């Protein structure tokens, strides 16, 4: 009988920015089972990529995700370069690294802001998003765009970072570091946030390994994988930074990993800007060659992997894309069962799911699901719980 009570969330609701359908089976307030249905955003990009040239595909895959738009081109160009072992100029490696890390900072700050909003801390939301702005300004200076930078191409990058811009960039990067350290301390030391997120939605290390989760979700559960360290690419073997690993696997650990990573990213960017060698930025590749290649990149949400097979023509014969959320989203079934429904929103959000990446493909659902509770209600419940904890701590 218990299974008859369920709360459908989605496919369209304001809790998550993208369409997805969650079904939480509840007993009282406790979640006893959960289902997820994806596919509302499937755009068939893998198939489309086969009908476009390698040059065009770089722009196509950049449109897979709006938040971490560089992740897919980064992995894709590396996969194509892997086909026939193309070496790219040193300076291009550094520029790629800078773009990759700037994106990590702005993506993590975006998530911290949203998580703050879900637990009713709109101050965190406002501050995190305010401090995200200078990062986007840096992007504008480097690439001319605040998002969708169009910097990548097979064999190098499309725009150089000008010497005259570097002092200004370093100054802004220092400011970003100050903001990030302040925000990290403020969030991690806050007793209410700790009470609200510690011990909630735990993903055990064994489950993390079995489900092959990646990125901050894996590292929060004590699985120390980071493609930047483990499979060094671009200029990641020439800079020093820490791999942030936590062991608890709860929402707090996931938040902590992301916050601490922003500071490491600042370090990487600073080293790159200072040590960047002079030279060309493009290897001027005319032909891709025949064969197959794999490209990996540690995106803000974890490993992105692209597989490309070339038959010697201008078009890939097969292009497989795997975004980190494809591996991370299934883990929520392990984390949400046994928790209260007021925490479900937060736990789902803690994965930082990115559905347009996971599906890469537009389909509209015709079914009308009767909605018992909207996403707004869940956010409200989540926020009310924080208020209760706040009251208890102060009182």
């Amino acid at each position, binding site marked *: 009988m218990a299974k008859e009570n369920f709360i459908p969330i989605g496919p369209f609701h304001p809790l998550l920015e993208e369409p997805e359908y969650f079904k939480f089976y509840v007993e009282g307030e406790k979640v006893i089972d959960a289902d997820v249905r994806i*596919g509302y955003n499937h755009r068939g990009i893998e198939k489309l990529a086969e009908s476009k040239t390698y040059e065009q595909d770089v722009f196509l895959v950049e449109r897979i995700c709006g938040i971490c738009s560089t992740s897919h081109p980064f992995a894709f160009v590396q996969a194509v370069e892997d086909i026939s072992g193309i070496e790219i100029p040193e300076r291009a490696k550094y520029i790629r690294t800078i773009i990759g890390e700037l994106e990590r900072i702005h993506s993590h700050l975006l998530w911290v802001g949203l998580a703050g909003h879900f637990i009713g801390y709109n101050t965190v939301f406002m501050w995190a998003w305010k401090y995200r702005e200078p990062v986007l300004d840096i992007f504008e200076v480097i690439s001319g765009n605040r998002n969708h930078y169009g910097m990548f191409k097979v064999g190098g990058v499309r725009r150089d970072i000008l010497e005259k811009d570097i002092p200004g960039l370093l100054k802004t990067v220092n400011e970003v570091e100050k903001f990030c350290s302040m925000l990290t301390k403020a969030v991690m030391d806050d007793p209410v946030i700790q009470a609200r997120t510690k011990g909630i939605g735990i993903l055990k290390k064994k489950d993390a390994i079995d489900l*092959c989760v990646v990125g901050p979700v894996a590292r929060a559960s004590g699985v120390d994988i980071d493609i930047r360290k483990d499979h060094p690419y671009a200029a990641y073997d020439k800079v020093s930074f820490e791999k942030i690993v936590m062991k608890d696997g709860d929402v707090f650990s996931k938040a902590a990993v992301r916050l601490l990573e922003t500071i490491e990213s600042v370090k990487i960017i600073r080293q790159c800007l200072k040590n960047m060698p002079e030279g060309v930025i493009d290897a001027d590749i005319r032909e891709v060659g025949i064969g197959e290649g794999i490209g990996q990149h540690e995106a803000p949400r974890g490993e992105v992997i692209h597989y490309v097979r070339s038959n010697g023509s201008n078009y890939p014969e097969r292009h497989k894309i795997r975004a980190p959320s494809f591996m991370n989203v299934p883990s929520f079934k392990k984390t949400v069962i046994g928790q209260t429904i007021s925490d479900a929103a937060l736990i789902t959000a803690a994965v930082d799911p990115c559905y347009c990446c996971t599906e890469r493909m537009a389909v509209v659902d015709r079914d009308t699901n009767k909605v018992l509770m909207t996403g707004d209600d869940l956010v409200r419940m989540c926020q009310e719980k924080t208020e209760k904890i706040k009251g208890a701590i102060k009182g």
Partner: protein
Amino acid sequence: MNILEEIRTKFGNKVNILVKSKKRVYVSVSIDDVKDIVGYLFGILGARMSIATGIDTRTGVELLYHMAFDKHDLVLTVRTMAEKPELKMPTLTDIIPAANWIEREIHEMFGVDFVGHPGLERLLLPDDWQVGEYPFRKKSFDSEKENTEKE
């Protein structure tokens, strides 16, 4: 590379190893041995299943399992072929839970039947998608077949 040595000792001539570069290795196996080998890589050698890829060919669907060895800076790809028209392939979900979603995806996109999968339902395609229509199959192969039949 000790990983490759271990695979050679354990599986002998069942595997055909191609070392493409220091970071990329491709291992071809027959469809009956895939489960043993991928299970060994995941369970004993501690590889992480990055993803699987399906590729449509004239005779079947080529399946690639990309296994990442994060401590060794190596991506080892296990290659096999599910023959048309049955397209049967033993599921890996019982040994690697992470294979669940990707097997559902390959099932709906290529029509590969993963024998033993706990719930081979639609993942990405809509519920009203035509049964037997596999979007990632190459149209040219199908039309070739039709032409031969006509002749």
